[in-house]
């Protein structure tokens, strides 16, 4: 068994490294104790923090400034290497792991996943809890707050969830309505619905009891209250778990009054308790009518420009339960009720067993008799009035509002001197791991390993990490980490101008998201090099997206991998509609935003904030000839106040100009040919995205460092600071030796000083 020994010590600053020659030659001219340019005097014992900045400037080649003599590549690397070497050695002797907050509330996604893993229920967390704040680009950083409003919501959520988990009889029927986005086109088949249908929707719904439920279907109407696309008789199909429940018929009303057209689309049927897939869709008509009336574009939702050809679903409502028969046999009841009392003699013992299992998972630690006192107290009170299960429900509620469930608490061991780096406990490490890889609580296997004290064994830890990465729950790294890192979450609020981008609809928005999610997940599952994000000659499309991209011979709603030859218009992350759209304005592309996106998320050189009183970008006012975006931005960069940041940003963005604001390929704009020549801050020049990718791949360490910093920020739940740089470098070095495979970053982070240790206050 391999065990690492940590050198524990108090953190102090390193001494000045003897300034190597080139540093004097290229840097001291400005950064000396007389001039102190940017507050840096290299001859006056700079701090560790300042040395880290020096190393970063050298690595990214952003100093010396353009126009001044610069070292050659070899000297740059040597110089940076020698500075980093000193810093790394100092850090190895006196590690500074930083300090994650003592109290970290589960954020919304973590809460949802924890409920799933604890109780086997999928809840719609957006309806239960307020959104989380984002800092450093992620929503799991600013999680120390507990406002009265949030607490009220936790109490309310605990009530709703514990009732649902046990299937407690509901006094008054409730219901839920799913409304579809108004810009969802429903003329074609959706992947998750049966073949031979078009449009509609599917929703996962947890039915609280074995009972009867009302299903109510409404059709989309235009602003004159007319059901859209209702020109002939159509059928509407209601399905439960893929089986037809009922087939309705809708007809154009004789008098033209549409108010009652879909009034009869309602039915009351018995459903068993637990999760079921409720779907509504339309059998596809084989009529040639559709073909002849087909418009040149795909989007059909706007009554003026491109109206719906056939009726569309607007909402599904489930109301109930009525005539309740009982709580049924649901996954959540099976999960919670690990025993059944045979009578009043052993019901308390059974309750204790139930709460022992629940609290252990919920609090992520071994529990003692004292931990069971509170849930048992609530259990006994409620049992007295309403029986055993009511007691379990109330005890469960008390577990769900316990601070040890709602918060991750990392407390320093007693007797540790202030400012000391110490190892987190095995249990704390287990939670760090599961929230990092799964955005959820540890499972029994991980928890058992931690309780047995085995997580400090490197082989055990490594095996756990690989097991967890292979588990479907690691999809959280795509939906939580990658979607925030790449700004994919902003896709929902992307609303391209309808006049300019007539063919944009929610179907396309969904397809963009699916493409990038599948692309990233496939890379993660196959454990490929993260450089494949830029090297991949493939992507994932369905017919809708393929048409948008101009890729021939892709038919149907199913997404599949397509491969391209040579320098294609597609392939890789940077040519995906999702990224290209979230970095554009509603009416046009923004080379500035695209450039900034690459600098911040790929190269790790986020431009500083714009100064106050930014002069405005002159629009096309009064100029005789139309100016291209490139010309207008050039004017902008002529202002020295702007040039400092826009000189690195804009040229990167120009490389994307062959892609419009919704990611379509183009060679002309406003009658002028597209000029996609661009450049990087290190002075390299290139053409288009292909050129940009080659330039990025020349310095894989820069991207690997940025990727590590982002993943580490997310994994630790705190901002990455200069004292983390030695750890980041160690992770990147390890990953480089493994061809930058995805797992090598994850393993590197898990084994890093900031992940395994913490600094006392």
């Amino acid at each position, binding site marked *: 068994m391999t065990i690492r020994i940590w050198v524990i010590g108090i953190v102090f600053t390193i001494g000045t490294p003897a300034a190597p020659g080139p540093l004097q030659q290229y840097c001291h001219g400005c950064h000396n104790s007389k001039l102190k340019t940017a507050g840096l005097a290299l001859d006056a014992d700079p701090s560790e923090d300042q040395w880290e900045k020096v190393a970063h400037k050298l690595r990214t080649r952003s100093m010396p400034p353009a126009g001044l003599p610069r070292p050659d590549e070899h000297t740059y690397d040597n110089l940076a290497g020698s500075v980093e070497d000193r810093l790394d050695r100092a850090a190895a002797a006196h590690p500074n792991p930083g300090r994650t907050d*003592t*109290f970290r509330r589960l954020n919304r996604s973590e809460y949802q996943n924890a409920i799933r893993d604890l109780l086997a229920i999928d809840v719609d967390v957006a*309806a239960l809890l*307020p*959104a*989380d*704040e*984002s*800092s450093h*680009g*992620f*929503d799991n*950083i*600013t999680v*120390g*707050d507990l*406002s*009265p*409003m949030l*607490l*009220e919501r936790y*109490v*309310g959520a605990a*009530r709703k969830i514990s009732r649902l988990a046990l299937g407690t009889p509901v006094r*008054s*029927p409730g*219901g839920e*309505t799913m409304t579809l*986005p*108004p810009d969802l086109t429903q003329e074609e088949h959706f992947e998750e619905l049966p073949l031979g249908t078009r449009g509609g929707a599917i929703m996962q719904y947890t039915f609280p009891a074995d009972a009867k439920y009302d299903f109510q279907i409404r059709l989309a*109407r235009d*602003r*004159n*209250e007319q059901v859209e696309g209702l020109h002939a008789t159509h059928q509407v199909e209601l399905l439960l778990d893929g089986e037809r429940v009922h087939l309705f018929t809708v007809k154009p009303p004789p008098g033209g009054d549409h108010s009652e057209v879909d009034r009869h689309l309602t039915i009351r049927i018995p459903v068993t308790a637990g999760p079921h897939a409720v779907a509504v869709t339309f059998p596809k008509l084989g009529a040639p009518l559709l073909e002849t009336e087909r418009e040149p574009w795909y989007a059909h939702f706007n009554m003026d420009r491109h109206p719906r050809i056939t009726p569309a679903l*607007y*909402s599904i409502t489930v109301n109930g339960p009525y005539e309740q028969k009982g709580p049924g046999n649901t996954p959540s009841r099976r999960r919670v009720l690990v025993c059944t009392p045979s009578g009043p003699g052993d019901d308390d013992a059974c309750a204790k067993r139930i709460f022992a299992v629940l609290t252990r998972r919920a609090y992520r630690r071994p529990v003692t008799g004292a931990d069971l006192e509170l849930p048992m107290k*609530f259990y006994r009170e409620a049992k007295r009035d309403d029986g055993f299960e009511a007691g379990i429900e109330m005890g469960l*509620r*008390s577990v769900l*509002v*316990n*601070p*040890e469930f709602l918060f991750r608490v990392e*407390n*320093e061991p007693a007797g540790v001197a202030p400012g000391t780096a110490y190892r987190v406990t095995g249990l704390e490490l287990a939670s760090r791991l599961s929230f990092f890889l799964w955005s959820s609580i540890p499972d029994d296997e991980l928890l058992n390993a931690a309780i047995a004290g085995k997580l400090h064994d490197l082989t055990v830890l490594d095996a756990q990490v690989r097991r967890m990465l292979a588990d479907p729950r690691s999809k959280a790294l795509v939906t939580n980490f990658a979607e*925030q890192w790449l*700004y994919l979450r*902003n896709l929902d*609020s992307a*609303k391209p101008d*309808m006049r300019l981008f007539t063919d944009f609809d929610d179907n396309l928005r969904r397809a963009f998201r699916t493409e990038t999610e599948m692309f990233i997940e496939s890379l993660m599952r196959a454990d490929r090099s993260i450089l494949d994000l830029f090297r991949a000659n493939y992507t994932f499309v369905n017919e809708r997206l393929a048409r948008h991209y101009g890729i021939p011979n892709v038919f149907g709603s199913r997404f599949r991998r397509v491969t391209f030859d040579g320098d294609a218009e597609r392939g890789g992350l940077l040519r995906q509609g999702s990224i290209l759209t979230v970095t554009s304005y509603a*009416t046009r592309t923004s080379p500035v935003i695209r450039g900034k996106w690459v600098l911040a998320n790929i190269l790790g050189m986020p431009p500083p*904030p714009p100064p*106050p009183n930014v*002069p*405005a970008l002159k*629009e096309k*006012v009064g100029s005789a000839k139309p100016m291209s975006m490139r010309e207008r931005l050039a004017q902008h960069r002529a202002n020295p106040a702007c040039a400092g940041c826009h000189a690195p940003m804009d040229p990167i963005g120009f490389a994307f100009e062959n892609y419009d604001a919704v990611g379509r390929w183009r060679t002309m704009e406003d009658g002028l040919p597209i000029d996609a020549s661009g450049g990087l801050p290190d002075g390299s020049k290139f053409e288009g995205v292909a050129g940009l990718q080659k330039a990025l791949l020349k310095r894989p360490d820069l991207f690997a460092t940025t990727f590590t910093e982002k993943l580490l920020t997310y994994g630790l739940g705190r*901002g990455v600071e200069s004292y983390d740089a030695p750890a980041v470098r160690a992770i990147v070095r390890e990953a480089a030796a493994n061809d930058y495979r995805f797992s090598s970053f994850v393993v590197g982070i898990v084994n890093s000083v900031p992940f395994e240790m913490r600094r*006392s206050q």
Partner: protein
Amino acid sequence: MMITKKALPRRTLLRGIGGALALPLLDAMVPSMTALAATPANPVRRLGFVYIPMGSHITEWTPPCEGALTALSPALQSLAPVAEHVTVLTNMELKNAYPGTHATSNATFLSAATAKWTESSDYYLGTTVDQVAAKQLGRDTRLPSLELAMDLLTTVGQCDNGYACVYQNNLSWSSPTTPLPAEAHPRVVFERLFGDGGTPVERAAELRKSASLLDAMGESIARLQRKLGPGDRTKVGDYLDTVREVERRIQKAEQRTADSPLPDLERPVGVPAAYEDHAKLMFDLQVLAMQADVTRVMTFQLARETSNRSYPEINVSEPHHPLTHNGGDPEKLAKVGKINAFHVSLFAYFLEKMKATPDGDGSLLDHSLYLYGSGMGNPDIHDHVNLPILVAGGAAGRHKGGRHIRYADPAPLANLHLTLLDRAGVRVDRFADSQGPIQELL
């Protein structure tokens, strides 16, 4: 439920689970509740704050004449029916919002404080004026204050210029380190105001359960606290305060359930697809909250800073934020003016509704005071002077409207905050960088 661009009857908007909720039901319940809280001898004073992002097209905004508000500017036209209750204040500034950013425009608007420049969780601002008021006005109501917004989705990535997103998202701060998240989902707002429904007996039983759960939670937190170092103990002390505050609210709710049983209300279901319908529903909920006297202090962010929302309903298809960086392009400026006028028209809808709702010896509008405006002046250059600002409502006879006050030199917006607090009967000597109350407001 079907939301269309046609004017929506309230019946449709508050459609409940099992069918439409008829408005008369609400009307029937309200007099009994208001009678308790707002007899003529004790006029309730309510304060409200409505935020619009990214300043204004100021020439379209500023009324042409000073003194009496005889003529309204293009952006303020829709206020005509309530102009006698409106005072426009021109040339106010927020010095502490510099360096000019969107984040500080929002954060400084009600705090007049300087936001600490940080992206981490060590953010620091100041207590906002609504929360100063809530500490006094909120003592007798179930919710000390209500925070509302329109944006359901939060933006990821960097927020603004290295400022943590909390500054841009939250208008209301109950302490320099406690932003109060706002709610944009009508059903969730409704549930905060009126609970899940059920009969009075069921609701009372639920409240007792929640109270005892909170009690237990407080004990668990206190137990944790004893194990912690001194630095973390303060944080846990804050959590305990939160628990106690929620306990207090539950007590209030229990009292109210006993005093004046609400009929079984039904909840609005989804979020209306059209911005205008959604905003009006959020204003309707504020009227309901006042009628039921659930709260007396409200803040409402009509849109977030740097919002890229476009307004096709008024033929503005370009997103708001880029439109404001227009370099003086008259076409774009005109569109900014249109957005400003549209936002004001939604506020005017609300004021008219308050005016039409009886409250004690007058109307809701008579007994309320609302501040409407932005923390940014000229959005093209991100400055914080010559802010679009107006005040509306009777404040129980303590605000005389129908006027336009123009300052020759920029006056601190904190002066207005100080004055609003004074009008609401909340005595403070100073608020942030205030120099003194605005006497002319009476």
